């Protein structure tokens, strides 16, 4: 009995020593803040962001006392660094208003989809949820379909480039920086859906290759079969001032190619984006797709797919 007691005491003492020593290992989280530009949003919006987002998404994170206790602090430090790499409200104000707006739309969508604040953060910090009223305030401010909502923010439209020659299909040899191929036939594929995006004034046509279309016809998209490909074709939305919105200039085409094994590290999908008539592969390096996976993560129950395909007359139902 005495032996057990001794062992227990030793363990507790060793544990305490480790615990105390662990407190000394403290990666610094507050970073030097440069000239701070305020986010271009009204006070009530900024207050919500400050209250609900800037505990982590900021150069000066505001942690609870228990977040400061290692080893929990180490997890928190990791999360804060990750949060800032995605969206840092201390820096957002220095970006162009249209970029700020796009980031706020993504933030609102992450909140709406339940991805933010992180579920683990919410579990450890009761009352940290964004309330319905706060979400409504953010949405009312962003007001995606307000007439001229973005007009003041958009620079003059770029001159319309001459249409590409149909004889030469550009980009046929392109490949994304992460090795996802370009599919020159995307415009010949059948339509899965269209979307009207008030958040960035674009219209989109989403087409699917035969594998994807068959999966919709057979209603077998949970998960999507390997070799399914979607092309999200984005055009600028041109409003005639009376609410008639037409498709304007081609902006970009994005692909999602399903291969559960090959793309296991990126949710089972190869992501690619080609911009402009030059079809320039998007991104600075092969890790550009972290941006894609980050945004698609909340849709994991839908095999990471946002598009709701228009149902098709079935075959084999």
């Amino acid at each position, binding site marked *: 009995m005495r032996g057990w007691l001794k062992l227990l005491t030793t363990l507790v003492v060793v544990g305490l020593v480790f615990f105390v020593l662990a407190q000394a290992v403290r990666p610094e989280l507050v970073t030097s803040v440069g000239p701070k530009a305020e986010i271009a949003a009204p006070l009530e919006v900024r207050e919500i962001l400050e209250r609900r987002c800037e505990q982590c998404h900021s150069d000066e994170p505001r942690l609870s006392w228990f977040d400061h206790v290692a080893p929990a602090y180490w997890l928190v430090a990791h999360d804060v660094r990750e949060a800032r790499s995605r969206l840092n409200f201390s820096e957002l104000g220095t970006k162009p208003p249209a970029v700020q707006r796009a980031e706020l739309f993504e933030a609102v969508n992450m909140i709406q989809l339940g991805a933010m604040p992180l579920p683990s953060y919410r579990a450890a910090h009761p009352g940290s949820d964004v309330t319905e009223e706060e979400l409504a305030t953010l949405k009312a401010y962003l007001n995606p379909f307000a007439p001229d909502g973005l007009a003041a923010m958009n620079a003059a439209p770029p001159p319309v480039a001459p249409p*590409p020659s149909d004889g030469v299909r550009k980009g046929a040899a392109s490949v994304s920086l992460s090795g996802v191929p370009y599919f020159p036939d995307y415009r010949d594929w059948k339509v899965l859906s269209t979307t*009207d995006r008030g958040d960035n004034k674009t219209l989109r*046509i989403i087409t699917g290759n035969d594998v994807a279309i068959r999966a919709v016809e057979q209603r077998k998209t949970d998960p999507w079969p390997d070799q399914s490909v979607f092309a999200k074709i984005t055009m600028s939305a041109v409003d005639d001032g009376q609410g008639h919105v037409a498709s304007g200039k081609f902006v970009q085409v994005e692909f999602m190619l399903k291969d559960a094994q090959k793309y296991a590290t990126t949710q089972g999908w190869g992501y690619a984006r080609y911009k402009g008539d030059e079809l320039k592969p998007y991104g600075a390096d092969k890790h550009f797709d972290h941006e894609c996976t980050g945004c698609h993560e909340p849709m994991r129950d839908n095999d990471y797919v*946002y598009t*709701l395909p228009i149902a098709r007359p079935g075959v084999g139902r």
Partner: protein
Amino acid sequence: MSLRTRVLACVMCGCLLSSVGCRKKQLVATDLYNDAAKVDAPLPYPVMEWQALTTSVDRGAGTTSTLFGNDSAVMASRAGQAYPAGAVLGLVTWRQKDDPHWFGGRMPDAPLGVEFLEYGAGQAPVYRHFAGSPLAEQTDSGGPARVTAIEGMKVVRLP
């Protein structure tokens, strides 16, 4: 109940709860397909099998329309030529609804109408209009204006 049993029960409950928490959400059809927007009425042409030429939105009416063309129409359009005999354009118009997955996005809801322009040897195409629920052919007099409007839709140039 002994203390040991209680502890065991708590641990088991904890495991059960955490496994439930991690499980994939049970999806229903509306989470996976936009059934409301399906175009499956008997129509003279399989418009949803065709390629899209452009898409547009009418904010006042709360509708979204996509212009499709059969092979002959698509080829002529891409070559910048007039639509030859046999070319058919199909304009499908849906009511719009909010995209449940993305605040700031709208997508098609129920189809409101399908209009076809059938090009023949003659000067003007034949206008046919299907509307209602289920979609049925209409005998309306708005043909000439609609032909002008549909032909006026600028086809998207895709690289």
